C-alpha cells in the first residue's frame, strides 16, 4: 500500500501535534487560575502586547478605514448608493477588519517575539534552570503571556474600531464631500451592539491563539539558532492561519441564522 502509507503517516502526525498542543494549552490555562500568580510579569506582558502595539494597530486601522470609504464610494456611486458608506465602513471594521487586522499585526509583533525569547531560553537551558529553581516555567513564562493576550487584544481592537471608523469619516468628509453630522448619525444608527461584541470576542480568542502559538513553538524549539528561527516562523504562520480559521467559525456562531 505505498499510496495509503504517507496519508496515514501525515494524519497520525497531525493528530500527534493537535494532541500535544491541546495538552500544552490545557496546562497553560490551568496555571492561569492556580496560585502563585505573578502580577509583575502579567503587567510587563500587558504593556508589551497592549501599549507597544498601539502605533502599529492604529496605523493599520486608520488606513483600512480610509481605503474602505474610498473603495466603497467608487463602487456605490455607480448605482447612487453612496449614502451606505458609513454603514459599510462601521460594520466591516467592527465585525471583521478590526479584529482580524489587529490580530495579524499583533501576531507579527508578539508571536514572533515570544517564540524567539522563549526559544532562546530553551536552547540556552534557561527553562531547565527555572525548573531547578523550583519555578514552574508554565506559571512563570506561559500563563502571564496568555492572560495578557486575552485581556489586551479586545482593548486594542476597541481602539482599532474607533480609529478605523474615524479613518472612513475623514475620507468621506474631506474628500468625498459628506455632511459630518449625517455621517456620524448614520454610523451610530446602523451599528449594533452585537457587531462590536462579536469583534471583541474574536479579539479575545485571537489574543489567546497568538500568545499560545508564540509560547508553544518557543517552548518546544530545539537545536540552537536555527531551531529558534524555525520556531519563530512557525509561530507567526500558525497563529495567522488559526486566526483566519477561528474567524470564520466565530462569525458562523454569531451571525449564521
Amino acid at each position, binding site marked *: 500500500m505505498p499510496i495509503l502509507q504517507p496519508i496515514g503517516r501525515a494524519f497520525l502526525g497531525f493528530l500527534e501535534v493537535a494532541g500535544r498542543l491541546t495538552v500544552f494549552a490545557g496546562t497553560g490555562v490551568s496555571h492561569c487560575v492556580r496560585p502563585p500568580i505573578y502580577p509583575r510579569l502579567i503587567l510587563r506582558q500587558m504593556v508589551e502586547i497592549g501599549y507597544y502595539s498601539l502605533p502599529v494597530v492604529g496605523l493599520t486601522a486608520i488606513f483600512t478605514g480610509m481605503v474602505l470609504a474610498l473603495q466603497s464610494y467608487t463602487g456605490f456611486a455607480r448605482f447612487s448608493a453612496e449614502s451606505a458608506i458609513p454603514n459599510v465602513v462601521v460594520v466591516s471594521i467592527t465585525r471583521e477588519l478590526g479584529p482580524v487586522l489587529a490580530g495579524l499585526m499583533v501576531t507579527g509583533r508578539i508571536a514572533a517575539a515570544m517564540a524567539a*525569547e522563549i526559544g532562546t531560553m530553551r536552547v540556552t*537551558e*534557561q527553562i531547565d534552570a527555572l*525548573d*531547578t529553581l523550583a519555578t514552574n516555567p508554565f506559571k512563570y513564562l506561559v500563563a502571564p503571556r496568555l492572560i495578557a493576550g486575552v485581556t489586551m487584544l479586545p482593548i486594542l481592537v476597541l481602539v482599532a474600531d474607533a480609529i478605523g471608523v474615524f479613518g472612513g469619516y475623514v475620507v468621506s468628509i474631506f474628500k468625498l464631500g459628506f455632511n459630518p453630522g449625517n455621517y456620524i448619525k448614520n454610523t451610530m444608527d446602523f451599528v449594533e451592539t452585537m457587531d462590536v461584541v462579536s469583534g471583541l470576542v474574536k479579539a479575545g480568542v485571537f489574543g489567546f491563539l497568538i500568545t499560545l502559538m508564540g509560547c508553544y513553538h518557543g517552548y518546544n524549539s530545539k537545536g540552537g539558532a536555527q531551531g529558534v528561527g524555525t520556531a519563530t516562523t512557525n509561530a507567526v504562520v500558525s497563529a495567522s492561519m488559526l486566526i483566519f480559521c477561528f474567524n470564520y467559525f466565530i462569525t458562523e456562531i454569531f451571525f449564521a441564522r
Partner: protein
Amino acid sequence: MTETVPKIRMRGLCKAFGDKVVLDGLDLDVGQSESVVVIGGSGTGKSVMLKCILGLLHPEAGSIQVDGEEVVGLHGQDLERVRRKFGMLFQNAALFDSMPVWENVAFGLVQGQAMARNEAKEIALAKLAAVGLGMNVGELWPAELSGGMRKRVGLARAIATTPEIIFFDEPTTGLDPIMGDVINDLIVKCVRELGATALSITHDMASARKIADRIAMLYEGKIIWAGPTAEVDRSGNPYVEQFIHGNAEGPIEMEVRAL
C-alpha cells in the same frame, strides 16, 4: 537498616532518544556529603543522567532515589519539593538574561521560597562576594559578563538556596586553565562550607582530580569503573586508562566517519 541510605541511588537507569540508547542500565550511588565526579566522552549521556535525576527528562526504566525516596514519576508539588534540595550549575551558566545579576542569584529565594526582595538581595550580594564578585557586579546584566564571571554567577545562584545537593555540569569547559582552577577551588570551598553532596560531570581530568572524592566513568550508558580519586591512575581498566591519558588509540573508538 544496617547500611546508611545514600543521598542519591540510581539503579538500572535507561534512557533512549528514538533509536539512540543513551543510558543503558546505569547504576551509581552518591553518599551523604560526598563529591562524585562522572567522567566520560562527549555525548555519552552525562548531562542526560543529571536531567533524569532532576525530573527534566523521564527515564524509560530504572529507579532514582534521593534520600531513599523514589523520584522517577514524581510530578507537581512533590517534584518541586524534591527539586528544592538541588542546586545546579549549568554548562553555559544559563543565566536569565532578562534580569540583572543579583536577581539571577536571588531567583530561587524570591520565587522558590517567597522571600522579600530586599532580604534576598542582601543574601545574593553575600553569595556573589563568596565567589569573588563585588557589589557592582550585582547590578550588571548577564550579557555584560565574561565567561568566567558567568560561571561564578551561576555558582552563586546554585548555592544561594543552600541546597543539600549540587550538580555541576562541565564546570570548567570553555574557560582558560587558570580560571578553570579558580572555579574548581570555589566549588570545593562552597561544597565544603555547605556540607553539600556534589555530583559533577566533566571530561576535564584536572578538574575531576581536584573536586572529586570519588570518580566514576560513564561509557556506553553504563558506569564501567568507579573508585576513589587516588586510585584512578591505577584502575587497571583500559577504558579509564585511555580516557585519563587522552589517547586516540585504545578500546574506546570514536565514531569518526571518513569522508
